[in-house]
C-alpha cells in the first residue's frame, strides 16, 4: 500500500476535528471502521485512532461483529 505515513501525533490531534464528521456518518446506523473510512474518504488506520479515541471518551460504542469487523454506533457520551 502506498499511503502517506503521517505522524501519529498529527493524526490523533485531528480527532477533535473529525468527531462531528464521524458522528454524522454514524447517524445512518452502526458502521465498521472501513465503512466510516470510506464515507469520510480517509485512511482506515487514521479512522481507527479517531474512533477508538471517541470510544474511550464515550462518544461511540461497539455493537455486533460481522465478518471479522465490529460496528460502532454513536452514544450519548460518558457522564451525559
Amino acid at each position, binding site marked *: 500500500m502506498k499511503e502517506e505515513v503521517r505522524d501519529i501525533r498529527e493524526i490523533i490531534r485531528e480527532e477533535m476535528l473529525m468527531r*462531528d464528521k464521524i458522528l454524522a456518518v454514524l447517524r445512518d446506523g452502526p458502521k465498521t471502521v472501513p465503512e466510516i473510512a470510506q464515507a469520510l474518504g480517509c485512511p482506515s488506520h487514521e479512522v481507527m485512532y479517531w474512533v477508538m479515541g471517541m470510544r474511550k471518551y464515550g462518544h461511540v460504542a461497539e455493537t455486533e461483529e460481522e465478518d471479522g469487523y465490529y460496528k460502532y454506533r454513536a452514544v450519548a457520551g460518558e457522564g451525559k
Partner: protein
Amino acid sequence: MNYDVLVVGSGIGGMESALKLGDMGYKVLVVEKEPSVGGKMILLSKVFPTLDCASCISTPKMAATTHHPNIDVMIYSEVERIKRGRDGRFQVRVRKKPTFVNQALCTGCRQCEMTCNVAVPDQYNADMVARRAAYIAFPQAVPKKAVIEREGTSPCSFACPAGIKAHGYVALVRAGKYQEAFNLILETTPVIGSLGRACYAPCEGECTRGDLEGPLPIRKLKRFVADTYYREHAEPEHKPAGEVKDKKVAVVGSGPAGLTAAMHLARRGYRVKIFEAESRPGGMLRLAIPSYRLPKDVVDRDIKNVTALGVEIETGVRVEDPAGLKEQGFDAVFVATGTPGTRKLRVEGEDLDGVMTSLDFLRRVNLGEKISLEGKTVVVAGGGNVAVDSARVAVRLGARRVIVQYRRSRAEMPAHDWEIKGAEKEGVEFQYLSAPQKFIGENGKLTGIECIKMELGPPDAGGRRKPVAVKGSEYRLPADFVITAVGLAPATEQLAGRLELNQNGTISVNPETLQTSVPFVFAGGDVVTGPSMIVNAVAQGRRAAFFIDRYLRGEELEGTGYDYRMPAVDKQKVTGRQRSYRTLAPVPGREVTGVRAGDFTEIELPLTVEEARYSAGRCLDCGVCSECRQCVAACPAGAIDMTMRAEEVDVEASSVIVSTGFKLFDANLKPQYGYGKYKNVITGMQMDRLLAPTRPYNTVLRPHDGKVPDNIAFILCTGSRDCTVDNPLCSRVCCMYSVKQNQLIMGALPLADVTVYYIDIRAFSKGYEEFYQQASAMGANFIKGRVARIEEKEDGNLVLHYEDIDNGGKLSRAEHDLVVLSVGLLPNTGVFNLFDGDKLEADEFLYVKEVNEDVNPGQTSIDGVFVAGTASGAKDIPDSILHAGAAAAQAAAYVERIRMSK
C-alpha cells in the same frame, strides 16, 4: 525533610524496596516522575508463567506504597540532583512538576478529561489511542488524580497583550464548541466582534504553524466565533453580577480600554458608569475605523456585552476633572479617553477649507455626516493605517482620484502591507518619497498642493532613514480635498495641573498598576501609551480593573501577581515533536471586489464553518493544554488550578536506591520490519495493552482497519541479541511474554492462528518450560527461523520472509494479518546524570553497575547508593522483586552502619 532512604522510581522494584524498608521502620521517600506509581508492570495484561492479572498484583502494592505510614511518595516529580553532604548524607533536590490540579480536591471523576479539547497520544496505551491534555494516567492509577499537561503558554496566547487565550478558542472552534469559544474570549474582553475584524493580530505573528505553511487565521476565527454567537444571540445571555458592591467606579471614555475595564469591574460587583464625550459610545472603534472594516452594528453588539452587566453609559459628557467625580460619589475613576487629538503637519494652508485631519474626516463619516467627494481629487498625507483607511473611505465617497502621499518609500510605510494592497486594488495611488510643502488655496478654499520630492538620508535616532528634501524638485499637485494623517495625540490639556502628565501629553501612571498621581484615579489605553493597537487598549483596561479592584478592597497594589502566564513554549521544541507534517495550506483571504461609491459593505468575507474548523484544525497545540478552561468549568470539586508552578524541594537521605527501570527497544530501528510504516506491525508492549482489561480497543483488533486478526505472528529477539542495533544481550523476558500473549490470544480469539518465529526459546526459570510447552500444546506454531524482512499487501496483511532453520535453512515466506515484534529491553541511562560529585558507574551495557554482584547484590560504585530491579540489567518480575528486596536489605544495613558509626 529527612529520610533514611530515597527510592528513585516506583515500578515494581522501587515499590518493593520501599515497602520492605517501610515495614522495617525506616522513613522512605519515593520519587516517581509519572502521575501514578506502578511503573510498567501495571500496564501489562497478565504475568507469566502463572497468568495472574498484573493489575491484581500491582495495585495492592501501589496502594500500600502510597498509604504506608513510613513512606512518602512524590508523584509527577523528578530527582534533579543527588549530592553527598559533608555529614555523609545525600542532599537531594526534587522538582515537583505542576499538575495544575489540586490533588487534595480532585476526586478522580474524569470530568476534566471528558471535556478537554486537546488530543495527544496516550503513552500509557503505547500510543495506540488518544488521551487528553487533562488526564488520569490510567484507570488503576494511584493516586487516581488528574494532571494537566502544559508545556508553557502557547506562543499565540503569549503574544496577546490582553491575555486573550487564542489557543483556547482555536481549540474550541476545532471541536465545534463555538459558544464556549465566545465565552472564553468574553472572559477577557467584551469587544470580540471588533477585535475579530480590526485587531492587528500579534498572535498570528507568533503562530508556530507560520514556520510551516503559514499561520492560522486566528483573528478571523475570533470573528467567526463572534459572528456565530451574535447571530444566535442578538442580546447577551449574561446578567449583572449577583452580589452588587456599594462602591462605584467611573470610567471616562468608552473605547476598548474603557469598555473592557467596565466589564471586569461590573463582573466584580461594582456599580460602573461610563462617561463618553461623543454622541455615541465605542471610542476609536466607532469613530476611527471605517465601517467597511468594522460595521458599527458589530460595535453596538460588543457594547451590549458591557451594558448587559448593568454598566450605564452616558454620552455627550466631557469629563474635564476626573478626580472631581469623587464628589459625585465615585470611589475610583478610570481615565481611558484615547487619542482624539491629531497632530498638525505644520505647513502653510493647513486651515484652508478642504483640508481636514484624518480623525476628523473618519469621525464625521462614521457618525453619519454627509460628505461627498464625488468627482474630486483627494490627497492623503501620511503613511500609517489611518492614512490608508482615509484613502479607502475617500474612494467610497466617490472621489475621482485618491492619492496617498508619503515622504519615505513603501518599505518604510507603517501601514500594513495587506492594507496597502487592498487600497491599491481599489484604485488608490501611492506617491512615495514626496511631501506637501504648502497647501494652496483661492478665496480660502483649497486648490492644490505644493510638493517636493524626498530622498532617504542616514538613519535617525530611531533607526529609520530620515527623508531629506531634494533641492529643486518642487512640483504642484492639484487637489480638491486633503486629509492629513500624520499621527494621533491625546487631548489632555484640561487635565494639566489635575493629573501628572508626560511631555507628549499622555497621562503619567505607574506602568504596573496604572495608578495616576491621584491615588483613586487610574488611567490606561492610548491616553497613557499613545496611539496603539486596540488589543493593547484592551490589555490596559483589563489591568486597570484588576488594580482598581485591589485598591477598592484596600489591598496592596505593588508586587501582586497580575500576569500568571507561564513562559511561551519554545517553537522549535513544538515542531520537533513530530517527524513529519502534512502540508495544510492556509485558507486564502477573500474580499469583496468592485467597490462602488457609497458602498460601505464589509469587504473581508467571513470564514465558512468548514473553513473555520479546517483552519482551527491546523493548530499544533503548542502548549499542549490550550487553556480553554473547559476543565475549570466542568470540575465539580473546583480542583483545577492553572496558577500552579513547579516547585523545587530539598530533602536529605542517608541512603539511595536507584530503581529507574528499563526502556523498551525502539522498533523503528529495525526498518526491515516496517514498524511505524506498516500499520499491522505492532510491538509486544502494544499487544500487551491490547490484551489488558484497560485496553485501547474493545478487543484485540488490527490497527490498520479494526479487523479481528486471525493469523498472528510473533518475531522474537527484536532488538535483542542483535549486534546490528548494538544490543548483544538477551532481553530475558521476550520469549516468555510472547508465550504469555500466545496463550491469551488463543483464549480471546479461539479461531486465531499464532506463529512464533524464534532463534531459541529461553525457558530458564521455574515453570517456564511447562509454560512454553503449554502454549505449544494449545496450538501455537513455533518456527525456528530469523525473519529477514516484511512486506505489506494492499489489504494490510503482511508477508514475512524468513530462514526456516528446522527445514534445512531454506528461505520461506508466510502471510499473516498481524505481526508482533517482541522487542527487547534497554538500559535507562538517564540515571547517570542524577549524581553530582560521586560517579555512578555503568557496566559495559550501560546498566547500573553492581560492583560486587555475587556477594553484595545491589551495591553500586557509590557508597550508600544501591540499585534495584531492571536498572541493573534485564530481569523478569520475580527476579526484580527479589533484587529489590536485596537492595532494601543493603540500604537498611548501610543506614544502621552509619548510625552505629556515629
